[in-house]
């Protein structure tokens, strides 16, 4: 337990020192999406009786909870390859579980802050959504999936450049294809089947449904839980691979 607290506390202290910069960083992309796709182009697209902004904001929430939680991989890599701080954890008598759980929770915390930033940014646009427990549960599930994936990947890559490649090939395509900017239901069946393999598609679906006050689909939560646990298990078994 001490090891877990130490790992999490370190990340939170770093976050505290960088808080203003981090908040600004979390706000830039969503704000640009809101202005470009919501405010400037939003009138061109209508979903039934709802504006495109009502559709877009839950998608941005899903995307931010993914990118912010996955962002912990960059911090782990910097600690590992540039500052060598990862050695402090390797030389300490802590379990792999303590290390992984500490970093995953840190990633999830960042994701929740990122989501709050988006919800605050969306207020001036006059969009009112439902923020019930299932809305937050979907965010927690999504950030658990991507924080666990981030820790596992950060242990396996051999350089910071590898990490950037992973982001380019996994996270960026998923951010656009995982039901964030357009309804997956509008695509051909085969494409829908393909995209339903992405955890972000289920997160977007669950977040959007609960934010609109509709009933949540239990399958989405089940997928996020199972995929999250698989990634967490992989992360746990990747820690030893980081030793040479």
């Amino acid at each position, binding site marked *: 337990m*001490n090891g877990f607290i*130490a790992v999490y506390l370190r990340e939170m202290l770093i976050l505290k020192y960088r808080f203003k910069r981090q908040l600004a960083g979390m706000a830039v992309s969503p704000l640009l999406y809101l202005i470009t796709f919501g405010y400037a182009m939003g009138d061109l697209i209508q979903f039934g009786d709802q504006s495109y902004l009502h559709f877009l904001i839950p998608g941005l929430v899903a995307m931010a909870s993914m990118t912010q939680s996955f962002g912990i991989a960059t911090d782990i890599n910097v600690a590992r390859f540039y500052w060598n701080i990862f*050695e*402090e954890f390797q*030389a300490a008598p802590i379990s792999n579980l303590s290390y992984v759980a500490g970093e995953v929770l840190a990633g999830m915390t960042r994701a929740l802050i990122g989501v709050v930033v988006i919800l605050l940014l969306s207020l001036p646009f006059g969009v009112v959504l439902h923020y019930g427990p299932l809305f937050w549960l979907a965010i927690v599930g999504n950030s658990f999936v991507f924080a666990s994936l981030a820790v596992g990947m950060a242990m396996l890559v051999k350089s910071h450049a590898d990490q950037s490649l992973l982001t380019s090939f996994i996270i960026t395509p998923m951010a656009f294809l995982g039901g964030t900017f357009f309804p997956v239901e509008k695509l051909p069946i085969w494409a829908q089947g393909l995209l339903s393999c992405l955890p972000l598609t289920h997160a977007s679906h669950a977040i959007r449904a609960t934010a609109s006050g509709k009933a949540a689909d239990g399958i989405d939560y089940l997928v996020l839980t199972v995929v999250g646990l698989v990634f967490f298990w992989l992360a746990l078994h990747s820690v030893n691979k980081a030793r040479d």
Partner: protein
Amino acid sequence: MIRIEKLQKLYGKVKAVDSIDLAVHPGELFAFLGPNGAGKTTTIRILTGLTRIGSGQARIGGHDIVESPREAKRQCGLVPQHINLDNELSVRENLEIHGRLFGMNTQARGQKIEELLSYVELLDRVDSLVKQLSGGLKRRLMIARALMHEPKVLFLDEPTVGLDPAIRRRIWSLIKRVQQDGTTIFLTTHYIEEAEFLAARVAFLDTGKIVALNTPQALMASLGEWAVDRMNGEGMETTYFATRDQASEYAASQDCGVTLRRVNLEDAFLHLTGKKVLS
């Protein structure tokens, strides 16, 4: 305190550590001396759990590093070659996190932070960010951090590399003080004078193998007490003598420039391996 048997580590076909046997006694200040790439850092990294063991066995304070890694790690304090402090955090926060990683409670952490920062003369910088400290102060903080959990063995990997002579001397006196307070010290260095000044016993390491192991005095005495360096057509040639009179007589007989000096550890290393320690 440290017992190593047939320790080996391969990187591809390269033997970074080649079948090392070694025993370091409780309270001893032991030094590994050798050129860059000799296997000094790899040995320390294996012993402290940073690098996977290839083959062989190692025990620290009676705990096998493979069978009981967490118990073995509890015995160790590590000051690596490179600065690995959290630059963005304060001096206190760096020590706090280390204390938590080693399971220290709040009261023990608070007491130890004050005691150690006073020990390494950094108490007035307790709330400074690490990035605001000089290289020498960071080294002292790393030693304090490694001592936080009261390890039985302190591993110091090239502890004074890149420091100016005055700061190096301060670090040396700190290391001596830590050893006098009862901690076993395992040091690697490629600075001859560092090993000579600090260590009770020295092992010469070359291409992953221990080529000699003894007290610095015994290693030097095997050559004699005095040395004469003379330049010949192929470079520097050194001849060793038991007495100063013999060395002076030889020096006087030479028709080129010579240097008369006392034998040092580098002579012993050079004699045993045919290599310069400083690469």
